[in-house]
């Protein structure tokens, strides 16, 4: 809940108003902000209604689902909705979206009964492309292509999804909106912010460190910051390491969810306490953001990160205020 409030506070700030961090006024701001964000959404949805909105789309890949949602297109069906809600979280799916089972093996009979006009998949599921194309035209969208600029990949994906669903105008609005959010934040972030090491806890002994090729890394660089992880990474931009590898002079950024088994580490682990970031109180904790996401996830990660850094700077003397 707190994160939600802080989030709104941040978007408030991004709209150009002067920040006032008085907790007592928070509720008032919340009310006001809700109105503002409702207006933005209303603008997008009125745009979509003006065009052909009757296209029935299903997306197997969550990255494409969040892209669709950001354009104001609610997919008719997607896979593993329960897991989507736990790992992607935002944008949340309305109830009428049909769950068609596993991502690797969506239920085709069910999909066929939904009168789909279009199915979107990622190359990860290319094995089911031939069989799905018997149901409706299938489009494979490559978001994770290490040879191209990552941000551009996300923009291209959004644009392509816009084209395919007759929402090109919205796509441009969304792309522009996300771009300006990033630019606004980049402008305000101190250039001398120390490097960031972004991790997700897997258990009490292992973490995933995100380096080159990951969504988090891309966002960090878009914000003009540095990624502290210089080690090898796999095709998806992360690697699995022990806690002892998390030595950085900058910030240690932990992205939720932290599994239950790992919670003990923060309290009484001597190795953890010896980490420079922990000793200097430079550990930032961020709510769950889908690590293989699209533009919305990228910007949400930027938001959360910016927010956490701002708070950190407020309490940390010696660093320039934002």
């Amino acid at each position, binding site marked *: 809940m707190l994160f939600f409030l802080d989030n709104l506070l941040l978007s408030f700030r991004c709209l150009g108003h002067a920040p006032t961090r008085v907790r007592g006024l928070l509720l008032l701001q919340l009310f006001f902000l809700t109105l503002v964000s409702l207006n933005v959404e209303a603008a997008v949805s009125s745009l979509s209604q003006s065009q052909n909105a009757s296209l029935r789309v299903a997306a197997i890949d969550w990255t494409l689902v969040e892209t669709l949602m950001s354009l104001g297109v609610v997919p008719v069906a997607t896979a593993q909705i329960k897991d989507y809600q736990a790992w992607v979280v935002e944008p949340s799916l309305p109830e009428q979206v049909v769950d068609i089972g596993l991502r690797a093996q969506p239920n085709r009979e069910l999909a066929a009964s939904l009168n789909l006009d279009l199915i979107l998949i990622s190359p990860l599921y290319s094995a089911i492309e031939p069989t799905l194309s018997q149901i409706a035209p299938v489009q494979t969208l490559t978001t994770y292509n290490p040879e191209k600029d990552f941000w551009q990949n996300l923009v291209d994906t959004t644009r392509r999804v816009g084209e395919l669903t007759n929402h090109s105008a919205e796509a441009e609005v969304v792309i522009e909106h996300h771009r300006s959010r990033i630019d606004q934040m980049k402008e305000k972030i101190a250039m001398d912010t120390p490097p960031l090491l972004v991790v997700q806890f*897997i258990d009490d002994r292992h973490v995933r460190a995100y380096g080159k090729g990951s969504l988090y890394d891309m966002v960090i660089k878009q914000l003009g910051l540095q990624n502290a992880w210089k080690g*090898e990474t796999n095709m998806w931009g992360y690697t699995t390491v022990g806690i002892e590898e998390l030595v950085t002079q900058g910030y240690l950024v932990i992205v939720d969810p932290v599994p239950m088994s790992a919670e003990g580490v923060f309290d009484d682990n*001597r190795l953890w306490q010896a980490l420079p970031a922990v000793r200097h109180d430079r550990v930032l904790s961020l709510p769950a953001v889908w690590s293989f996401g699209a533009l919305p996830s990228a910007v949400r990660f930027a938001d959360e990160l910016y927010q956490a850094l701002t708070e950190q700077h407020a309490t940390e003397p010696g660093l320039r205020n934002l």
Partner: protein
Amino acid sequence: MISIHQRASPAYICLPLVIICVVITFNLLSHTLPGLSHGSFDFFVGLSAPEAKVMSTAVVQFSVLPRMTIALLVGAALGLAGVLMQQVLRNPIASPTTLGVASGAQLGLLLATLFAPGLLAFGSEWVALAGGAISLLIVLSLSWHRGLAPVAVVLAGLVVNLYIGALSTVLILFHQEEFRGLMIWAAGSLAQNSWSDTLHLLPRLVVAAIIAGLMVRPLGLLELDESGARSLGISVRKLRLLSLGLSVFITASAVSLVGIVGFVGLAAPVIVKLVGARTLAQRLLWAPVFGGLLLLTTDLFLLQYSAQLPSMVPTGAMTGLLGAPLLLWLIPRLSLKGTAPNTSKATLQLTSKPTSRMFLWLLVLLLVSSIVALFVTQSTGGWIFNGTGQWASIVNWRLPRVLAAAGAGVLLALAGTTIQRMTGNPMASPEVLGISSGTAIGLIVTIYFSSDVTVPLLVLAGSMSAVITLAVLILLNRRTGFQSERLLLTGIAITALFDPLRSIFLANGDPRIQQVIAWMSGSTYYVDFSTGLSALLLAVMVVALTPLVARWLDLLPLGRNVALGLGLSVDKVRLILLALVAILTAFATLIVGPLSFAGLLAPHVARMLGFSRALPHLVGSAMVGALLMISADWLGRQVLFPQEIPAGLVAALLGGAYFIWGLRRY
């Protein structure tokens, strides 16, 4: 002669390992602690010391040293457990992994994590202990009627391991993201960040070692025969129970901390025995020492070179990979006493009952199940019992799957019947020969190394690796004339390669996991109409050809000498049958994956229904196999609607349930 033996001592192989460990450790530490090489290293550094120094000291103190200690302790624990198991069961290839104890413990923990996390707070090792003990009990009861003969026990262990593998695959398939951590643990990662694991395991290990030490004399008497031991006033049963319980407990303690560490428990006792630890007391001393050193050496090597690897290779999986070749090397050197095929009554019962009515019943059942599979389904609105107006969906989505499931079921059943009759071993199955696992290994490797996975590519890779596996089987068994025991052990060794590979892949949390698991768990999902039809046609064709091999399969169970006497050139016939089994299995594996139990189950059910002569047995089990797979495929599509459980997994779960139920009959 004797003096040479006495001079040969396990110390000679332990010493080089110690030296290697010391060298690598020094190398590692001098990187972490630059002061070490000039002797200016102080171990206790206050938190006020310079930052870099605090960190590097903490890394050594709370990561490197505990990791090395836990490697020694886990290796020792598994070595000790292995010695006890091998001694009690008088079985040179018994070990926590081959008997399914480690994987049972693991499954217990997986289930507890998912469905009863409260139990874990109570003590994860007790959950692991329960799981390990249950699977050991199942293994022992499965091989009880064969007098716990080594190969029978290990084969039962493999079947239990495969079953547990199927169960955990279902869990992973549906909880991919939640299992990120568990997958690493499952693959046996020794990473440490405090001394708590060491402090946990050490006292348990010490107590276990003391108890084992107290039992040296009575356990040594077990090497004589049982009546001898009994006459000396030992309650053999209690002794066995106690030492098996002890070994399960040590295994469970180790597994609950660092996951499955493959094959140290098998290798340590065997190797120290080979290099001169002849008495039980010597083995009890040296196997833990050697086991600890073996694991530490492996771990240090991985630590040294892990930075160069883009993906994480957990130590436990690594020892598993090293263990499979060791097992292959060991097999020809084992003396397998008292395991002559114990031809069961049913095989010898040559006067077959009137089976035509049974055939009719099976045919009716097949028809009913096909109709149900084609016309009954769930939808968002509930059950639909009528297919009218849905012809498109029946022909497109259901018919290919029913055809493929039936075809694969028939092929596996025929392969299973052949291999069971050929080896005279009721626990033999195509899965056990390692051909399914070999095919799956090929698929995993292909998916890992290619970014664009297509169905034809997978089919190609799968068939290639099936052929390679068959070649390995033939090469390794040619000299011994395809003796059934050795054949099965070779299969076990090949299967043993599959598990660690799978673990490594899963531990890296690759987003392609679900794809791989879906493939491995054998779904008819990817089958189109022409594939399904050709699977069924192939199956029908093979059934039509069965009369050609029926005579061989009638004679082979009578034993090598009888068969030779009746004019059968046994070696050649075995080679032909083996190739046949391999081809059938490879085709079936490509359709329903490596884990289905159809090949194990169908021949049993067919025999229970009274088909005892080769020809009716083959045809009967083919029908049962088809029935099983069609029902499994249908159930898999309905149970968790709209999610689909792959048919191979459903068949494995049904088959496993049958075996546990069937235990009463043994």
